[in-house]
């Protein structure tokens, strides 16, 4: 009985649509849960690296602390400062959220667990992950705050500078896998992970990803000791929470990308693929958190110099060498 109903509905709207809708809901769940886990993890990791305990009162090991925080943020009044550019100011926290959702669609969590395998997956994920800078720009322009403005301007320069090495280092992976589909790239790493055959590309990609997500040592758009809170200085309550959510989701996405492109994605012995995937991703997330609680922040010109003078030439070189070797 149920089966026929499902089949009937499927006939009307198509299996593909159902798959996408279910997938998107699943992605939303992953996004929210991941953000909660990461806020908790960030506080715990920072605490233990500073030899503190961190959250411990709400729930066992403070595990429910993110939920308490969310409730607090939801309950807060949404303050709108005077003289903000209202459309931009309201739009920014919404826009920040859309690209991160879309990026999830193409990530293969397991051999058969992927919302949609697009044959230009690499392009989709790159295109959408670089969209997040748009919302930062809107937030900075709309907030009518000089710190926000400086933060957003920094963010754009930074994104342009780091998008290029990100792309170039990925190209050498694409050359080796001979495909732009993420599934194919993972499958191509059955024998050797690309982290071993493309170590330089891996390093460049990971460094550029840290910069893309505005994490220390490249957290210039929010640099709290210089710009108070950077582009989200004027945001509070749930609007701030959305930026927060997007930041942690971005961290997850770049780590998932690194896992997919370099660490063999869901591949691994014995355990199911999805566990391997999340284990690798969260290991990288831990490294990013670890960076944050160890390093100072680079200066703006150093950040740009590092990309334009070192990462980009190096990734070009890597690409040429890879291409040459493959041709031979």
């Amino acid at each position, binding site marked *: 009985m149920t089966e026929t109903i499902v089949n009937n509905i499927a006939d009307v709207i198509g299996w593909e649509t159902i798959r996408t809708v279910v997938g998107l809901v699943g992605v939303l769940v992953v996004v929210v849960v991941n953000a909660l886990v990461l806020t908790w993890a960030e506080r715990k990791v920072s605490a233990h690296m*500073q030899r503190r305990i961190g959250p411990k009162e709400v729930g066992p090991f403070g595990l429910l602390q993110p939920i308490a925080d969310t409730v607090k943020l939801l309950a807060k009044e949404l303050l709108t400062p005077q003289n903000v550019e209202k459309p931009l100011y309201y739009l920014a926290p919404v826009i920040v959220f859309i690209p991160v959702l879309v990026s999830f669609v193409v990530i293969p969590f397991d051999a058969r667990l992927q919302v949609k395998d697009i044959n230009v997956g690499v392009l989709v994920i790159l295109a959408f992950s670089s969209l997040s800078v748009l919302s930062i720009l809107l937030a900075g322009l709309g907030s009518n705050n000089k710190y926000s403005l400086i933060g957003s301007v920094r963010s754009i320069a930074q994104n342009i500078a780091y998008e290029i090495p990100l792309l170039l280092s990925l190209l050498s992976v694409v050359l080796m896998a001979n495909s732009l589909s993420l599934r194919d790239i993972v499958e191509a790493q059955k024998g050797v992970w690309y982290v071993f055959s493309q170590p330089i590309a891996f390093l460049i990609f990971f460094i550029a990803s840290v910069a893309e997500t505005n994490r220390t040592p490249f*957290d210039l758009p929010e640099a709290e000791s210089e710009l108070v809170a950077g582009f989200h200085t004027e945001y509070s309550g749930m609007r701030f929470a959305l930026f927060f959510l997007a930041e942690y989701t971005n961290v997850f996405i770049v780590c998932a990308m690194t896992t997919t492109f370099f660490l063999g994605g869901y591949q691994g012995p014995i355990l199911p693929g999805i566990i391997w995937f999340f284990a690798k991703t969260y290991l990288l997330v831990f490294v990013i958190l670890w960076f944050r609680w160890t390093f*100072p922040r680079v200066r703006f010109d150093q950040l740009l110099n590092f990309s334009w003078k070192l990462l980009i030439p190096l990734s070009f070189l890597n690409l040429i060498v890879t291409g040459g070797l493959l041709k031979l």
Partner: protein
Amino acid sequence: MVTGIIEDLKKTLTGIDVSEASYGQNGYHVAVEAQKGSLVNVAEFFNGRTFYLADLCCVDYVDYLELVYFFNHHKTLCRVKVTLKVEPEKPTAPTISHIYTISHWYEREIHEFFGVYFEGHPNLIYLFLHEGIDHYPLRKQPTPVPEDDKKLLNSFNPEGEEDTFFVNLGPQHPSTHGVLRVVLKMDGEYILGAEPVLGYLHRMHEKMAENRSYVQFLPNPARIDYPGALLLNLAHVMTVEKLCGIEVPERAQYIRTITCELNRIASHLLWFGAFPADLGALTPFLYAFDDREQILDILEAITGSRLTYCYFRFGGLYNDIDDTFIEMTKRFIKRMRERFEVYDRLVTGNVIFVNRAKGTGILEQGEVHKYGCSGPVIRSTGIPFDIRKTEPYAAYDKTDFEIPTGTVGDNMDRYDVRMTEMEMSLRIIEQAIAKLPSGPFKAEKVPKKLKPPKGDIYHAVESSRGEAGVYIVSDESDTPYRMRWRVPSYSNLMTFPFLARGTLIADAIATLGSYDIVVPEIDR
């Protein structure tokens, strides 16, 4: 040096009255009485010999006001007091701000507290009292402020030219360490001009001192410079002791040295935490606080408090130290030496940190005497100026230590100097503990009510930020006639507008962090 200066003064300048003073009694070697016409020449004379302006203050003697200029030399000790008498009604004096940059602020301060008009001062507005005043607060007779002179502080003038904008860095900003406000004129990320705005923590300790006995002022110095409370406590106590001629027992001197050095390390550790935090690394802050807590535990065990100590007394100490204190201190020294290695690995060697600190905020050695800088800020430029060496007090002359100096005067040098200073402090503590004599910890014949003889005295100690001096004028009563605090952060901060100009905002923040300014100390 002293006789040479006196002869030079007599030879080259006219219209002044030069006399030799007793350094032991007054804390300065030469007293010069200048006239309005000759003051600028005197300032130029000392500027030409690279003397720095240690302090500029004013004393109201009712019949006349006396401006007191203290000059000293960074390399050879020669403290000179230059006085200038001005009339009490609508007083005027020539400015020396074009010679000594720091007197920009000193003169503004005297203008708002005494109503002295400095002719030729480019920007004679209030320094601390933003909301204006009815009466000049430090005048002995109630003197109302003229109606047309009740001006408010108006340094924030956001009429920028095209392509520039103003940023109010502070008073609430994570990197201003309290409530300092700096008005920045920016062109994109570059700073075109910076002007500190002071007074958010102004409490007028100098006026408080005039209303309390010497003993009752004891808790106040700890509130002037809270991270280095004991060091300022010592400045006050020693000045009064010197004024009254109280002999301090040997044991007390050693204990003072030990506790002061512990406090200095605690203060430097606070800075060590805050400086990388200004550059974006937050973990060193917590590590430094872990170690700082150990010092606070040690000091709490003998002084009873953890931050605002009130431990030193005229003629000695509040109470004696015990074996547990020595035991704890020894353990701390051992622990701290290991921790320095951790700090080196985490911060000092870190390439990001080095790139941020090296070559930024460079303070030229030739300029420092114009600002009157002291402490690690001046030592970073290569001048080994340390009052613990030049004018030894407590038991510093009986311990062997070196003065770390930098070469370039950039943020990295200031960092290095402070880090080495902490190690030197450990060395001083170790030696002082080894040599600690037994005996009384307090002088016996200290009168309950101190009534120092008539006269004035300037005495300075090396606080963790530099020269912290006290100038007391006594009128034989049990309260000071005038007590003036010369604080190091004040003149160190004066260099900030010049170092920040033309740099990136991130570098300016690093420079501000490397100064280790304490805002309550600046505002007093």
